[in-house]
């Protein structure tokens, strides 16, 4: 049987830590090598160029809504950008770094040979692009892209926010390199532990989908439609339920709907066909069959049993607040 490590409830403890490179792509391994090489240099980075956002950027400058860290690995990373409040042309060499907070701009000229690693701190992913440019405009450029799942929040994002806060023209530039080094340590850690990060995001997605089902059970819901809503494949959705939850997707949906039906049966004198529709079943006979399979009695029997037990013991018959 196939084992989906990223979604298993308990990771094989220690195994992932001992073999961090096992399932790693060649691209990701090269990114990790570059990061290791930088962090081996004791005072890396010796300085950090921080981009600004006050001046209007020239056409086709890089301006995006997420933070970016750019690390020259060789050659000369020549950039036009807003630094210390002025538009300048700077050359960033290995040993230094460039950090662009959200909506801040820079524009690589690609006029000189350079090898540079860009790290993109997105909402859902950490992105990496290893760019090698021959330094001429005639297409002598290659880029190797890779990414890992990453949740917004946590120390990594607070460091990128802190770096943005230091961009006020008043803070000492000496505060920057230590933060950037810490940031790169966290990036390296995420690269070395992607299955754990991914597993967490799978659990969060599962929870989001569960909440979605709990609030949309009245509508016509299919596995395909929910999968599309959340941008995943129908098979992935099924896998998510098998591994994160205690029941299959359809079982969970049935559970949500029959639970709601029980609540309505207990508390409202509605007709069975009305309750059936309210719970997302257009076919009352089908609803009754499903209800009977799940609760081992018909909707009418269920209502009578609850009424009888509350007549015997009024306290137990009080309508529960949450419908359970």
């Amino acid at each position: 049987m196939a084992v989906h490590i990223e979604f298993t409830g308990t990771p094989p403890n220690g195994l992932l830590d001992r073999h961090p490179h096992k399932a790693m792509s060649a691209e990701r391994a090269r990114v990790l090598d570059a990061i290791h090489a930088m962090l081996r240099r004791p005072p890396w980075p010796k300085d950090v160029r921080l981009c600004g956002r006050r001046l209007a950027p020239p056409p086709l400058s890089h301006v995006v809504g997420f933070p970016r860290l750019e690390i020259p690995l060789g050659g000369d990373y020549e950039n036009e950008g807003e630094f210390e409040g002025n538009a300048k042309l700077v050359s960033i060499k290995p040993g230094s770094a460039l950090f662009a907070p959200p909506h801040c701009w820079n524009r690589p000229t690609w006029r000189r040979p350079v090898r540079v690693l860009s790290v993109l701190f997105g909402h859902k992913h950490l992105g990496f692009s290893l760019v090698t440019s021959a330094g001429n405009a005639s297409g002598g450029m290659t880029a190797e892209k890779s990414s890992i799942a990453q949740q917004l929040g946590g120390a990594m994002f607070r460091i990128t926010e802190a770096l943005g806060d230091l961009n006020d023209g008043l803070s000492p530039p000496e505060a920057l390199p230590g933060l950037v080094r810490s940031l790169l340590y966290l990036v390296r850690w995420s690269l070395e532990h992607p299955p754990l990060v991914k597993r967490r995001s799978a659990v969060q997605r599962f929870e989001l989908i569960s909440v979605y089902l709990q609030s949309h059970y009245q509508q016509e819901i299919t596995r395909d439609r929910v999968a599309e809503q959340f941008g995943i494949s129908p098979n992935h959705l099924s896998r998510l339920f098998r591994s994160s939850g205690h029941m299959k997707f359809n079982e969970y949906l049935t559970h949500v709907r029959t639970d709601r039906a029980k609540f309505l049966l207990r508390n409202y004198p509605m007709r069975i066909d009305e309750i059936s529709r309210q719970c997302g079943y257009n076919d009352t006979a089908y609803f009754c069959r499903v209800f009977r399979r799940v609760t081992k009695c018909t909707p009418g029997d269920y209502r009578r049993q609850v009424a009888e037990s509350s007549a015997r013991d009024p306290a137990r018959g009080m309508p529960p607040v949450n419908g359970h």
Partner: protein
Amino acid sequence: MTVVAVTACPTGIAHTYMAAEQLAKAARKLGFHIKVETQGAMGLENELTAQEIARASVAILASDITLEKAERFDRIRTVRVSVPDAIKDPEGVLARCALDTAPNPALPHPHTSDEQRSA
């Protein structure tokens, strides 16, 4: 009008995301319904499903490199532009979607019979 789009630039650092944002912004302004997939350094994000592509009238392929999963667009009319074009003139690109009614040569024209096509 419903449009799908993909953006992809060589480095995947910024222009991919800027083009996506510009297309989305221009679509809102012009009253188009749009979903934009980005193929940048963060991987395939906001990925277009087969259903979404089938439902759209046209696909904008704003790319300066080979697209991933390009075969998804074999059966839909496409408008191909460079990433800088999509950043600098997103409204112009969308206007082309509305005007440019030339059919995709890869698709058999609905009003052309088999004899005419093979001729």
